[in-house]
């Protein structure tokens, strides 16, 4: 293989990294919490099923758009700084970020109290709570979806950063495919809740499931970050050092 080709990541492992990062993103729960509250307010306010669906669909759409925007922005930033050739120190920093975030998620993601409150600034949580209650139109719901992704940026920055590093090394068409894969997988948990609400599932049961399994979700997200850090370290740092790539 040529030198240039050696530097390009194997497309399959790149897409595997993107998928795992997106799955970790999907296990974070702020957007799901906001969607649950939004549905509760809408059903409680006796809105029609059509309006409920319009609000929840706009919310999911907003969360998707913000995920794509964030990922594209970070990728653009990195490509402007490094081009397509990422220094090993940046990969090492990315692995460190994933490792640190894994520990942080294991220790701090959920607050030590009942319910599903997470470690985001309380002002942000209060703002989202207030906005959820006031949301009546699709445009507001869309904006709420955008804000809920921003509210969780502290946690999703690590998978987004690694995905952006991987994306900028791919050919243009694969970059688009990578962004598409990341967006769809990262929205899976939201889409499931959206579907459940759409078919008339009981919100209390959804929230009860989320509360009962919150430690499992926390452990999975932390473990996923750790596995991703290890995988990226092996393929990008050790792989390059021993001349595998």
């Amino acid at each position, binding site marked *: 293989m040529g030198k240039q080709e050696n530097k390009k990541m194997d497309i399959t492992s790149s897409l595997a990294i993107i998928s795992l990062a997106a799955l970790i993103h999907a296990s974070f729960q*702020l957007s799901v*919490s*906001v969607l*649950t*509250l939004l*549905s*509760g*307010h809408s*059903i*409680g*306010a*006796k809105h029609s099923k059509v309006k409920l669906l319009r609000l929840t669909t706009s919310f999911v759409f907003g969360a998707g758009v913000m995920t794509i925007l964030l990922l594209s922005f970070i990728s653009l930033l990195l490509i402007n700084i490094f081009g397509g050739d990422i220094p090993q120190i940046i990969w090492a920093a990315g692995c460190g970020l994933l490792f640190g975030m894994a520990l942080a998620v294991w220790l701090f993601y959920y607050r030590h*109290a*009942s*319910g*599903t*409150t*997470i470690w*985001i600034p309380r002002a942000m*949580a209060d703002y*989202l*709570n207030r906005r959820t209650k006031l949301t009546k139109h699709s445009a507001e719901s869309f904006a709420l979806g955008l804000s809920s992704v921003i509210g969780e940026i502290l946690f999703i920055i690590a998978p987004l950063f690694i995905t952006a590093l991987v994306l900028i090394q791919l050919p243009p068409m694969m970059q688009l495919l990578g962004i598409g894969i990341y967006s769809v997988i990262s929205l899976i948990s939201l889409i499931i809740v959206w579907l459940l609400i759409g078919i*008339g599932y*009981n*919100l*209390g*049961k959804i*929230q*009860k499931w989320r*509360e009962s399994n919150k430690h499992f979700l926390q452990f999975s997200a932390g473990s996923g970050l750790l596995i991703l850090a290890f995988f990226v370290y092996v393929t990008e740092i050790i792989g390059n050092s021993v001349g595998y790539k």
Partner: protein
Amino acid sequence: MDLSVDIIKRGGQRQSERFMREKLHASIVAACLSVRAPEGQAEPIAHAVCDSVIAWLQQHPEVTSSDIRIVATKHLRIHHPEAAYLYEQHRITI
């Protein structure tokens, strides 16, 4: 019916306000509807819970909004445990 009871808002940051039965009633109805209880069931439950909370408030002239939520949850649990769960979770979801 508004009682002359002052409700101190969460964290004490906002001004206290008078107790309003309609506000409590609406929130209980909303919790019941959210767990897909029919409106015909939600309304009488909300009336019963409001009556119980008002009876409790008559012995407590100054309470916090969180006290009201705790007492309302306790009474709602008797009538509709699932709605009570969601009502209780409202502030601790995000």
